[in-house]
């Protein structure tokens, strides 16, 4: 019989945690330029961890030793700090700048968006030809990326923008009813989750929380971090699409990936990783035994930092758990507070009540 009283000790997502998520969501952190997010993370984790350092890739590696027993498993949790965004590529003059996309953004998501350019967060907009000037034929096609510009206005601001600067969506975070809305919730939700877990670090494990860089452009940070950390096993904590919208023809949507409100998504297989089946069983069993809602993410495409982590050195058993979110890789993502809460709860309870010999079973 499982003692579910443990649940009472799991971290609760309250107003403070949501306020931190808001700060994280609003900060700019386009892949390779995660500085502003890193600063927030360091400020949070330094008082919580035994040690926290920044490595050559810009990952934050925070370690907290457990206190229980003397052969504690070494667990690595990874959440990426970076977000998809834009990079200035050339100056057209008059405050207009050409740009490239960093990470996977559908070109149909860009026109008509406000952005913030560079560390100085210079406001800019991505406009589009007015409807009056377009033909019906033209309106059937995607506005080509090559015609879009970031407009910061002429003069002083433009002189502070240069090629290589990143731009992020200017969306402000909102908490509305049961939902959270904001840019970069993929994966600031994961970042915030790791901070909450570090705050309530289970004493039976040696926990390393890694806040990784450059996930969106090829899982670049996580691999190097896992090489240094050398954990016994790893969990990537991320955000995954909830494509739970109706199909055009009214038939059953069989390709939702995940569904909002069904709890954390456990991965068995994505393009980058076949999760260690023992870890999948462990997480699912924890959910079932403690009555924490969870869903199996539909196997197939996509990927997380686990893809890089599990191939380090002699191999690191890995699994991923994500908070489902609608409309990722756009200016605004929508997630449910309840799913986030259950993600934190599932991970914490699973770690705290981790069975001995988890990786010994076949």
């Amino acid at each position, binding site marked *: 019989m499982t003692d579910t009283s443990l649940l009472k000790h799991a971290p609760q997502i309250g107003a403070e945690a949501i306020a931190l998520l808001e700060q994280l969501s609003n900060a700019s952190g386009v892949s390779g330029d995660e500085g502003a997010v890193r600063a927030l993370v360091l400020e949070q984790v330094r008082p919580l961890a035994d040690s926290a350092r920044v490595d050559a890739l810009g990952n934050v590696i925070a370690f907290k030793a457990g206190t229980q027993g003397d052969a504690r498993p070494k667990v690595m949790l990874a959440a990426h700090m970076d977000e998809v965004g834009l990079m200035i590529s050339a100056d057209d003059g008059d405050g207009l700048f050409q740009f490239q996309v960093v990470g996977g953004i559908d070109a149909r998501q860009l026109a008509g968006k406000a952005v913030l350019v560079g560390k100085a967060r210079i406001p800019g907009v991505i406009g589009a030809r007015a409807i009056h000037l377009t033909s019906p034929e033209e309106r059937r096609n995607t506005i080509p990326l090559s015609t879009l510009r970031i407009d910061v206005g002429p003069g002083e601001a433009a002189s502070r923008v240069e090629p290589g600067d990143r731009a992020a969506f200017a969306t402000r975070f909102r908490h509305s009813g049961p939902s959270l809305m904001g840019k970069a919730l993929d994966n600031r939700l994961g970042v915030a989750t790791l901070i909450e877990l570090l705050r309530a670090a289970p004493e039976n494990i040696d926990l390393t929380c890694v806040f990784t860089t450059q996930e969106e452009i*090829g899982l670049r940070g996580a691999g*190097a971090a896992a090489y240094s950390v050398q954990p016994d096993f790893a969990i990537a904590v991320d955000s995954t699409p909830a494509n739970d919208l109706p199909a055009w023809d009214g038939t059953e949507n069989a390709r939702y990936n995940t569904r909002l409100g069904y709890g954390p998504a456990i991965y068995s297989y994505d393009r980058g990783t076949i999760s260690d089946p023992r870890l999948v069983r462990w997480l699912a069993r924890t959910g079932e035994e403690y009555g924490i809602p969870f869903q199996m993410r539909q196997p197939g495409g996509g990927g997380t930092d686990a893809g890089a982590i599990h191939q380090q050195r002699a191999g690191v058993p890995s699994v991923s758990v994500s908070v489902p979110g609608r409309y990722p890789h756009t200016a605004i993502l929508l997630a449910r507070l309840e799913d986030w809460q259950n993600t934190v709860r599932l991970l914490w309870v699973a770690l705290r009540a981790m069975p001995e010999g988890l990786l010994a079973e076949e």
Partner: protein
Amino acid sequence: MGDLVPYLKELLSLPGLSGHEAPVMDVVRRAWAPLSDEQRVSRMGSLEALRKGRGDPEQDAGASRPRPSILLAAHMDAIGMMVTAVVDGWLSFTQIGGVDPRVLPGQPVLVHGREPLPGIVVQGPDFLAPEDVHGRPHPLERLWVDVGRTAEETARLVRPGDLISYDTQPAELSGELISGHTLDNRASVAAVTHCLEILSRRIHDADVWAVATVQEEVSFGGGYTSAFGIRPDLAIAIDVCQAQGPGTSEAHIPHLGRGAVVGKGPNIHPYIQRALVRVAEEMEIPFLSRGMAAHSGTDAYPMQVTAGGIPTGVISIPLRYMHTPVEVVSLKDIRRVGRLLAEFITRLDRAFVDNITWDDEP
């Protein structure tokens, strides 16, 4: 560097396709041997030359901290082709690295069979092909190499797996430009050589590993393995980048002859990027900055994520007509890259390495 042109022409006249770099390595080794203290060949076949740090008597007296070390990676391998079958004296072939089949018909090539055989890439008459390709380029699989021997002789001298290299002679163009096949990336090998020559007249703290890497064009194999074997404090990839020329219009592409290109982006550590810019400005070495949104397309890509991560920089030489047999670069740019590297290395000390951080924060 008075003898840049003959040295470069010698480099350009040799094959050394990816995975088969031995012919060009001998020439590089001859140039680097007098400029370095040790040379070795890695298991992969990369040439690794160490020029030891000099000066700073404290270091020489066996101080507790090792000298700073820097790895300069310039790949020496070339794109080319490989025989896949010998059919009645005709050679069918595939590519090694990225070859545009549209520039192949009519190219003089060298087939490296039991003896070197001059040959021509040929495209058959349209009437032998299906109608949908009439007047259009024939795909690679339908091109042949004709070595002008009898079918029997060809079958005796050539077999599947034999290499085919471009046989175009290098040419000096007006305005200090040089043309030839494999300027990608022998131009950078020449720039590193130039750097070592300057360093041979300087005092520098840092141990300098000049590495002529292999297999960049197919898998970045040399970059991964030499960085792992050497494990330097920092690494710089020297490679070519696209230059403005006929057929290019993108504003972010740099012009030939206007200086070294210093890369900025996620594949580049910002501390190193800023230091390179600072040195270039201080020494009045013409340079351009260029944003690289994700993959730099150079050995910096593998080196950055080697082991626990290595801070990397990217310096490029603008080049027209990439991967054709008539690539063009400016000799001035080659010298500038060599100078910039040498000036950077001269200033490199332990304190620089200790201070490499991602952000401006303490």
